[in-house]
C-alpha cells in the first residue's frame, strides 16, 4: 500500500471565544488513497467548507494532524506551505476566484509562474490545460467576458495545470446552471478516470453520484462513509467515455 495522498486525524476547528464559540469540526479522521474520487456532503453549517479549507491549507486546524503525501502540514513553515499549495494542491472555489483583468491564459499560467516554470513551458502547459477543459477558443478572454461555467472551467484548468497530487473542489457547481454543471462534472470524471485524486464538496446528490466514495458530515463529525465504486476503477457515472 502506498502512502495515502491525504490523511487527517482527529481534526477539530473552533471559531470565536467564550459564548460565541463555534465548534465547526469535532474530531474528523479521514484517509484518501491515490486515485480516489471523494464527495463530502453535508448541510450548510455541517463544517464541510471548514474541512475543505483546512485540506487546501488555506486555514489551520485548532487541533489534530494533517498529512499530505506523508508530510505533516502543521510542521511546515510559511514558505514551505506556499510551495505545498503550489505543487501538491489544486483548489477550485465555488465563486471561481479568478484574478480580474487577467486573461484566461494568464490566470492558468499564474500558479506555474509562482512555481518557477519557464515562460515557454508555462504557455504550452496552460494551453494544454485549457484545451482539456474545452476552452481553447477563449484563452485571450478576461474573466468578466466569460460565462460562469467557462470561468469555472478556467479555474479547473488553473487547479490542474501544476499536476497536483490532490484536486480539491469546494461546491464547484454551486453557482452554475445545469448545462455548465454537466460540463464541469464531466471534466472531473475524466480527470478521475485518468488517475487524479479528487475531493469535492457538495450538497447535491446528483453531484455526489459521480464520486467513488461519499462522506456525509453532520455537525462537524463524519456520520456516513459509503463507497460507490472501487478506488482503482472508473468513476460510476462515466460509461460513455472509453477508458
Amino acid at each position: 500500500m502506498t502512502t495515502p495522498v491525504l490523511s487527517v486525524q482527529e481534526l477539530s476547528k473552533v471559531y470565536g471565544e467564550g459564548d460565541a464559540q463555534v465548534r465547526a469540526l469535532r474530531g474528523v479522521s479521514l484517509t484518501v488513497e491515490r486515485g480516489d474520487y471523494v464527495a463530502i456532503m453535508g448541510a450548510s453549517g455541517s463544517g464541510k467548507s471548514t474541512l475543505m479549507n483546512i485540506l487546501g491549507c488555506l486555514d489551520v486546524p485548532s487541533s489534530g494532524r494533517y498529512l499530505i503525501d506523508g508530510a505533516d502540514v502543521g510542521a511546515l513553515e510559511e514558505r514551505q506551505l506556499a510551495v505545498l499549495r503550489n505543487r501538491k494542491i489544486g483548489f477550485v472555489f465555488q465563486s471561481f476566484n479568478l484574478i480580474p483583468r487577467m486573461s484566461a491564459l494568464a490566470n492558468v499560467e499564474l500558479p506555474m509562474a509562482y512555481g518557477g516554470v519557464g515562460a515557454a513551458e508555462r504557455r504550452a502547459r496552460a494551453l494544454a490545460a485549457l484545451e482539456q477543459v474545452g476552452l481553447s477558443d477563449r484563452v485571450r478572454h478576461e474573466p468578466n467576458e466569460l460565462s460562469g461555467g467557462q470561468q469555472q472551467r478556467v479555474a479547473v484548468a488553473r487547479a490542474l495545470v501544476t499536476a497536483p497530487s490532490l484536486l480539491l473542489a469546494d461546491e464547484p457547481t454551486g453557482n452554475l446552471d445545469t448545462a455548465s454543471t454537466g460540463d464541469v462534472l464531466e471534466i472531473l470524471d475524466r480527470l478521475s478516470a485518468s488517475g487524479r485524486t479528487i475531493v469535492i464538496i457538495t450538497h447535491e446528490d446528483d453531484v455526489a453520484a459521480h464520486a467513488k466514495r461519499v462522506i456525509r458530515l453532520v455537525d462537524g463529525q463524519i456520520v456516513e462513509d459509503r463507497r460507490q465504486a472501487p478506488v482503482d476503477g472508473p468513476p460510476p457515472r462515466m460509461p460513455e467515455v472509453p477508458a
Partner: protein
Amino acid sequence: MSWFEILRFALRGLAANKLRSFLTTLGILIGVGAVILLVAFGEGASQSIQQSIQRLGSNTLTISASFSGGGFGGGGGGGGGQAGGPRTQARQLTLEDARALADREQAPSVRSVSPVVTASSATAVHEGASHTISQLVGTYPSYFEATNKPVTSGAYFVNDDVLAARKVMVIGRTVAEELFGAADPVGRRVSVSGVPFTVVGVLKELGSSGMQDADDVAIVPLPAVQQSLTGFGALGSIIVQATGAGTTESAQAEVTAVLNQRHDITPTGTADYRILNQATLQETVSSTIGVFTALLGAVAAISLLVGGIGITNIMLVTVTERTREIGIRKAIGAPRSAILGQFLLEATVLSLVGGLSGVAIAFVGTRFTIAGIEPVIVPSSIALALGVSVGIGLFFGSYPANRAAKLRPIQALRHE
C-alpha cells in the same frame, strides 16, 4: 519566481487600473515639482537680492542727517532744522563735516569721502527730447568707486572738474536712452533746468532693483549742481568708503567720533545723523532672506506632505481592495515574498515615475522667469523631494501589503 516576473505582475497590476495609477502619479508629481520649484524660486530671489546689495558696494557707510522730531520737511535751505522739544539744535551735514571726515589723523580707516547732494526730478532736455531724471546727484569723483558705479563709455569727471565747478555729467543708461536713443551721448550737451551740461560718460547698466530704476540717474560735480540747482546748503548725505571690508566697523566708530565732536553731541545724547552700514544692511537682508527661504521651504514641505498622504491613501485603498486577490494568489501557492515584492514594486514604480516627472516639470518650470525672479535649482531639494516621495510610497505601500500577505489565505479570500 524571478524579480522580472514580479515586475511584470506589478506593471500588470498598475495597468489594470490606469486612472488610479495616473492620479497617484500626478499627486506625487505635484508634490515633488512644487518642492523643487518653490525652493528654486526662493534661492533665485535670495541670489538676486544679494547681488543687488553687492552692487551698492560692501565697505561703504552712508551718513545722512536725521531729525528725530520728524517735523522737518527737507527743502535743503539754510538755517538748519529745528528739532521739537528740549533737544539740542540739530545740525545739517555740511561740506565741512565731509572735510573733517577726510582727515587722515582723525579717521585713519576712511579711504574716501564723497559729499552728496541730490536733486530729485530734474528735467533734462536735449534737442527736443525731454526726460525727468529721478535722481540728479552732485558729488565728488570718489563717489563712483565707493558706490560701485563703473562707466561703460566715456569717462568719469575728475577733481579738477569739481574745483572748477564744470558743468559735466555722467548719466545712467535709462537717461541715455530717453534723451539720445541709440546715439552715443558722450560729448553732447544736455540742458538741466536751463543749465547746459556736457555728457562725459555713461554708467554701466545696473538694472532696476525693486521700485526704483537704478539707471535713471545723472551724476555731476558737487559745486555744479549746487550753483545751478540746489544752492549751497546742507548736504543730502556723505558716503564714506572704508579702506577695506574689515575696517568698516572702525571707520564707523571714527566717523561717529568726528561727527559727535563737530555736532556737540554728548555720549548720552541722541545723534542728529544716521550711519547706514552696507555690511550691516547685507547681514540684515541675508537673515531676512533666510526666513523667506525657510517659509517657502515650509510651504513646499506641506505640499510634499499632502502628496505623501495622497500616496499613502491610494496605497492603503489599493491593497485593501485587492486583499481578495492576494488571497487567491496565496491559495494557488504564491509565497509571501512574491506578493510583497509585487506591491512594493507597484509602489516604487508609481513613486519613481511620479517623482521623476515632477523633477522634469520642475526643470522646465525653472526655465521661466517668475515675477522678475530667475529660479535657481538647488540639487539637495531634488534629492530630498524624490527621497521623501519614494520613501513614503514604499513605506505605505509595503505596510498594508505586508499585513495582507501575512493573512491566512482563507482570511484574505473572505475579505470583502
